[in-house]
């Protein structure tokens, strides 16, 4: 199905001076798509050219439409020598290919040059006419919608969630081709940008094909990543969850003003158009009659290809051998052995048992080695399979299980990249499953057969699947994949949360009517108080939910905590207790997951960001030896990371982690592990025990004193944290629980992570010897450090909260002010005395200081919460550690936060918030325009004595010809899937951009900081410009997936690659929504918001 792409170049502004003699520029524009190029005329001697070109038309295949970016190059005409490039704009036209997204791209785009950065702006209008209007997209994947958001997008409902889709394409990296030696850095960077743009287009198209084969129409939780494998090539891979989505038709009725903003844009003159005349395509304009030069130029020869796209049900690779799996259950008594010695040997044992596996992989296969290491965290819960737990459960559950199984087993990988689900979708959560594999990269000999990469991932996924099975789960949710590459070694990682899902959401047909109701519950409604009114869309939801037997089986507030595995045949030892909420089924003492906190979960107090940080030195080595030493280190790192997480969780008096993300980064001489998660106190789980430390030499008096001092500090910290996070679970009378419960919170007696709720505890806790090798043992400096590091984690200053999930449990009165930011730090580790401890300390300090400086910078927003705090660690060079953080600060109403903030701090908060009001004006006033673009408010009348000089001057300024009257629209960016106090009315398409920036004058640009600061600001600006051109006013689910920074200060050079993505949307402020007439019928059905009540 071919289409016609139409492009019009309107004008430029603020172009750089290209002709030193005249201080002016003779600019013209080349518009290229595929192999076709058009040119505008030269607009002589102007820094603000008005080209007003005719419509350049490209007649192309839809395949090309999907793969190719539109490439706009601005050049300076030079009569005697070659024309100089000013810069380029790449426009992804994908959003124009599906009917519900944008219909036109029009606006000012920054002109970007990889060497000079942004150099002026260009105004472009792009449209696509797809032929064959009926059945528009059936023959291609053009119609498939993509969302980065890892939940069902607002204003859609999921009819069916089909499941996992993945694809990867490989190519040679232009940076490493021979030609790179002779071409300029600019040419090389541009080749790379263009190639990656092509590859991601191709990847998206192929994923789309798979979705169509599954009879879906959308991909949710789409995550695309690049592996820069250096010499061995460039891999672009993506995963996502295929769904069939339906647009909520009510939206338009509900929001008459906003249902078709982009359509309106088509008709109304573009308000950013500096010269309205261009729209009347009358021949009177002399420019119209000019002939354009048409020069089919050579296309970039590319050799990328994809892996097989077949959807065969048989696994492509044999399941990887079930290696020794190390179960790390810090909470279980089995691992906390009776003596430190034993403990060690236990670990050694597991370590050595890895080796056979490792070598068995290596020997038969050629050069490639693979070691996988997995662990499952303990989570726990109800007697799904056991039948012993619930009287009502029995037969129904068996049936349910069978259904789910059959639904899921048709899929090769029952994985879901979603992290938030409609209530009732998650039946039980088993725990975190993860797998890592160390691979040696070699050149991809035949890019058309990228099977090795495919096989690697298939192997890992298979492993994840089997781990999930071992936990009694059929599915993995919150699934993600990542890599870390250093030279020729690559660590592939995958992790997710094993879960049992409600089969009805996964089946076609049958229960669809009901499903729609259920699935269209959108996560976040209840937690975001402002989303009221949403429920009105689903008047029958209460009735339909009663149809789902599952509701009875597991009460909404705690059902997901109940163990999915068989109590009598547990995959690992764990302490189980009866659920503290329903008291009917079993729950584990601690729950770790990679998903967001389910909206229905009952949480006590607030949550907080918990991080485990770890470094391990390793010898520099080559190839295989290197891979071996890395794979030997991995299990220890995983264990320590989990121990740290567990300790820190207990230190905060919490019992569950959400959004867990463990990143292991490999460098030349070290490995770094960084785990981030949001700790909460789930009402359904038992109260966590305290932390007990003990010395090894009990006779030494001063030592004992030291130990007890330490112990006191720990206990104090726990108590303080409980107060800080408002964790005051109700005391439960013993009889109700029906199993031995601990004397509530009696500190001094417990092992570091002992659960108070199990029988063994009372035996184990009798002090001496029963200690964990990593925390209790104070007799070596290592352990001392660990304890210290536990205590050095400073809580955020008053008024601040932080989490790495979408929403902060316990805060639900968000105000609309948001501030998304990226912070990057690169630190040089001191060369001397590199030991694990100093490394750990340095790394810890680096992270803590970074957090501190974030709190300081955002102090004017207090009270606020940093949400979706996302740390990324890289080891670009020997002694360099790079940490990048992206997060969003959201303010909330302090009145409800007051409990947390003591009286003395109150005053300062008030002051801070009045300061704040200045800034508040901005969003309030600026985002008040329900239409797509939100220009800064135009000044009304200009009188001399008016207070606002800016707007006034600006108005008058229109008469000055050189500066056009366009305004810059405000675009909000957030890593979250929602905007507080606003309703997303339309998704305009995915933003997926890749930029390279290079400099050969690093010092002149302000050093590395100046260089990167400017580059990140430029990336933000380009994202905003694209969103604004699509008619949007925000990017949600924004993520910076890659930030690769390299410097060579000696040569005064630096290079940086950044890859970002997100969903462009139109949102409307809730306050405006209220002003619109609400349909009376929907208001009546309010009471059905039952789900929301649970959380409050």
């Amino acid at each position, binding site marked *: 199905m071919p289409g016609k792409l139409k492009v019009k170049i309107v004008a430029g502004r603020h172009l750089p001076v290209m002709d030193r003699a005249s201080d002016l520029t003779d600019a013209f524009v080349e518009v290229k798509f595929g192999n076709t190029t058009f040119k505008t005329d030269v607009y002589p001697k102007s820094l603000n050219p008005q080209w007003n070109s005719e419509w350049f038309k490209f007649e192309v295949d839809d395949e090309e439409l999907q793969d190719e970016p539109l490439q706009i190059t601005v050049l300076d005409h030079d009569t005697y020598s070659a024309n100089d490039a000013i810069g380029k704009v790449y426009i992804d036209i994908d959003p124009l290919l599906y009917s519900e997204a944008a219909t036109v791209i029009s606006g000012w785009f920054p002109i970007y040059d990889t060497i000079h950065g942004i150099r002026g702006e260009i105004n472009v209008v792009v449209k696509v006419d797809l032929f064959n209007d009926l059945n528009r997209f059936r023959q291609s994947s053009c119609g498939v919608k993509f969302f980065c958001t890892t939940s069902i997008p607002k204003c859609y409902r999921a009819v069916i969630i089909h499941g996992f889709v993945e694809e990867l394409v490989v190519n040679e990296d232009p940076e490493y081709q021979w030609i790179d030696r002779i071409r300029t850095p600019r040419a090389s960077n541009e080749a790379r940008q263009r190639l990656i743009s092509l590859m991601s287009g191709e990847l998206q198209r192929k994923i789309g094909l798979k979705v169509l084969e599954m009879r879906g129409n959308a991909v949710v939780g789409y995550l695309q990543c690049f592996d820069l494998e250096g010499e061995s090539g460039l891999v672009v891979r993506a995963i996502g969850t295929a769904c069939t989505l339906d647009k909520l038709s009510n939206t338009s009725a509900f929001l008459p003003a906003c249902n078709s903003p982009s359509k309106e844009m088509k008709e109304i003159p573009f308000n950013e158009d500096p010269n309205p005349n261009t729209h009347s395509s009358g021949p009177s304009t002399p420019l119209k009659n000019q002939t354009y030069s048409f020069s089919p130029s050579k296309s970039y020869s590319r050799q990328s290809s994809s892996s097989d796209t077949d959807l065969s049900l048989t696994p492509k690779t044999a399941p990887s051998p079930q290696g020794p799996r190390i179960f790390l259950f810090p909470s279980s008594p089995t691992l906390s052995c009776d003596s430190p010695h034993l403990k060690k040997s236990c670990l050694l044992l597991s370590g050595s048992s890895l080796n056979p596996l490792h070598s068995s992989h290596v020997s038969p296969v050629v050069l490639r080695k693979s070691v996988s290491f997995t662990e499952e965290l303990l989570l726990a819960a109800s007697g799904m399979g056991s039948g012993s737990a619930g009287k009502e459960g029995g037969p129904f559950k068996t049936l349910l299980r069978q259904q789910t199984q059959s639904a899921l087993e048709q899929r090769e990988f029952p994985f879901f990249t979603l992290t938030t689900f409609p209530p009732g979708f998650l039946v039980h959560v088993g725990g975190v499953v993860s797998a890592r594999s160390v691979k040696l990269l070699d050149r991809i000999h035949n890019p058309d057969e990228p099977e090795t990469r495919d096989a690697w991932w298939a192997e890992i996924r298979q492993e994840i699947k089997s781990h999930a099975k071992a936990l009694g789960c059929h599915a993995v949710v919150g699934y993600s994949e990542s890599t870390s590459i250093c030279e020729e070694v690559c660590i592939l990682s995958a992790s997710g949360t094993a879960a049992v899902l409600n089969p009805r959401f996964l089946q076609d047909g049958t229960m669809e009517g009901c499903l729609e109701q259920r699935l269209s519950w959108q996560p976040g409604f209840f937690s975001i108080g402002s989303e009221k009114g949403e429920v009105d869309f689903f008047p029958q939801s209460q009735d339909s939910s009663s149809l789902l037997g599952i509701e009875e089986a597991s009460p909404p507030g705690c059902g997901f905590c109940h163990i999915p595995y068989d109590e009598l045949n547990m995959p690992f030892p764990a302490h189980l207790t009866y659920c503290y909420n329903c008291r009917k089924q079993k729950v584990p003492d601690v729950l770790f997951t990679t998903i967001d906190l389910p909206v229905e979960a009952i949480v006590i107090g607030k949550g907080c960001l918990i991080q485990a940080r770890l470094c391990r030195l390793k010898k520099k080595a080559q190839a295989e030896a290197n891979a071996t030493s890395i794979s030997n280190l991995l299990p220890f790192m995983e264990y320590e990371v989990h121990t740290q997480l567990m300790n820190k969780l207990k230190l905060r008096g919490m019992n569950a982690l959400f959004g867990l993300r463990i990143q292991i980064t490999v460098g030349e001489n070290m490995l770094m592990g960084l785990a981030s998660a949001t700790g909460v106190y789930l009402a359904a789980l038992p109260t966590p025990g305290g932390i007990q430390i003990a010395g090894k030499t009990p006779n030494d008096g001063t030592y004992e004193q030291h130990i007890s001092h330490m112990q006191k500090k720990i206990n104090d910290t726990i108590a303080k944290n409980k107060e800080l996070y408002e964790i005051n679970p109700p005391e439960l009378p013993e009889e109700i629980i029906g199993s031995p419960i601990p004397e509530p919170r009696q500190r001094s007696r417990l092992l570091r992570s002992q659960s108070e709720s199990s029988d063994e505890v009372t035996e184990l806790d009798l002090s001496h010897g029963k200690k964990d090798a990593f925390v209790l043992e104070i007799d070596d400096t290592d352990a001392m450090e660990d304890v210290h590091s536990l205590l050095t984690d400073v809580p955020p*200053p008053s008024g601040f909260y932080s989490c790495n999930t979408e929403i902060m449990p316990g805060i639900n009165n968000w105000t609309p002010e948001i501030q998304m*930011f990226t912070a990057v730090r690169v630190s040089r580790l001191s060369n001397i005395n590199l030991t694990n401890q100093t490394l750990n300390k340095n790394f810890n300090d680096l992270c803590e200081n970074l957090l501190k400086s974030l709190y300081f910078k955002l102090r004017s927003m207090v009270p606020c919460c940093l949400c979706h705090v996302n740390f990324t660690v890289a080891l670009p060079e020997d002694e360099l550690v790079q940490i990048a953080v992206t997060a969003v600060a959201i303010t909330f109403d302090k009145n409800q936060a007051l409990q947390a903030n003591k009286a003395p701090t109150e005053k300062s908060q008030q002051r801070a918030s009045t300061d704040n009001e200045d800034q508040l004006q901005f969003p309030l006033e600026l985002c008040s325009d329900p239409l797509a673009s939100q220009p800064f408010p135009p000044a009304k009348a200009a009188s001399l004595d008016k207070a606002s000089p800016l707007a006034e001057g600006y108005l008058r300024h229109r008469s000055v010809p050189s500066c056009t009257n366009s305004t810059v629209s405000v675009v909000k960016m957030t890593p979250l899937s929602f905007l507080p106090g606003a309703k997303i009315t339309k998704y305009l398409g995915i933003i997926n951009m890749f930029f390279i920036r290079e400099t050969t004058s690093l010092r002149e640009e302000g050093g590395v900081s100046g260089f990167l600061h400017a580059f990140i600001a430029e990336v933000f600006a380009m994202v905003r410009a694209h969103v604004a051109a699509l008619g949007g006013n925000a990017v949600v689910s924004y993520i910076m997936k890659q930030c690769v920074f390299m410097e060579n200060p000696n040569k005064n050079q630096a290079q940086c690659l950044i890859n970002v993505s997100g969903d462009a949307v139109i949102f409307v402020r809730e306050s405006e929504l209220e002003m619109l007439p609400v349909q009376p019928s929907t208001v009546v059905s309010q009471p059905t918001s039952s789900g929301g009540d649970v959380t409050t």
Partner: protein
Amino acid sequence: MTSDLDIFVGNTTLIDEEVYQLWLDGHSVAEAVARRLRGGVLERAGTSVAVLQSDTRDHYRTFQMLERLLHAPPRLLQQLLFQIPPSRQAMLVQRYYAFEESFARELLGKKLSKGTKKDLDEISARTGVSIKSCRRQFDNFKRVFKAVEELRGPLADNIQQLFLLPPPLARDYAAVVFFANSRFETGKRRLQFLTFGDFAACAQHMMLHWTQGALAPEAAEPDGDVPKSFLQDLKELKVLVADKDLLDLHKSLVCTALRGKISVYNEMEANFKPLSRALVNVGGKLTHARDVRDFFVDLVEKVIEPCRSDKWSPADLRLFLGHYTAAPRALPAFRHQALWERYMAVITACLLRMYHD
């Protein structure tokens, strides 16, 4: 562990007004950190010096990147690189273009040339404004001067449009440009008692009444100059002092009107002729560039100082000037009434403004 690279970029550009002022005042990062420490930000936010340093550096970097845009404020409004709320943009521009009056006073009437720029360290030492800040202020004057030099229409309005300044600030800039253009002498010892505000007010009156823009906004000549034809015409006023009869008649009219109304009547009566001569001749000399320079010197030397030594009160001066200006209406032989009033409006306003200690 040292941080080689340390940056923070917000989608909405964070701007700390306190740090901005420190940057504008020309403090280095280290000085700014020290000042912030003294300001007690640490106690309030409870953080470390390292954090403060990193924060200050971030802000400084942002300001350096913004500076290019601040040179052409309309670009700040249009640029896509920094997302800044309009109120903050206005603040940025306003503060960037704000200047120390003591510094501007020194610079009034000087040529905004490289030579003057070289002497800035002297001015800096004299005024106590840091040299970096002096350079920024000087460059601002020069930039504004260059931008409006060739433009038509009222100077202050042009400046306001091109630099998006609040009207009072735009008017001050117009005064600076006007002075730089006309090169009035302001540095003489006897003029030292006059402040920037005095001169700015005088310049504004001159622009309001004398320049072309004042008569027809779309006039052909730039606003910075007083039209030659007007200055030429001023020579005609000399008749008031050259013609003995007119002078006597003028004096008697003024004296009649003022008798018993001012405390310094006798001194006034005695000094009427030299005063009148001075007042009229100041205008007559304006056709020569060299004499233009002496405009303020003449007013002070020949009008203000004699009056002051005779202990005129400002009210006396006001009354006198009022009647002095009005009296020629009753002189049948005097045919330049409109010209006279246009001229005297400025002279009166200037004198009243300048008549203080």
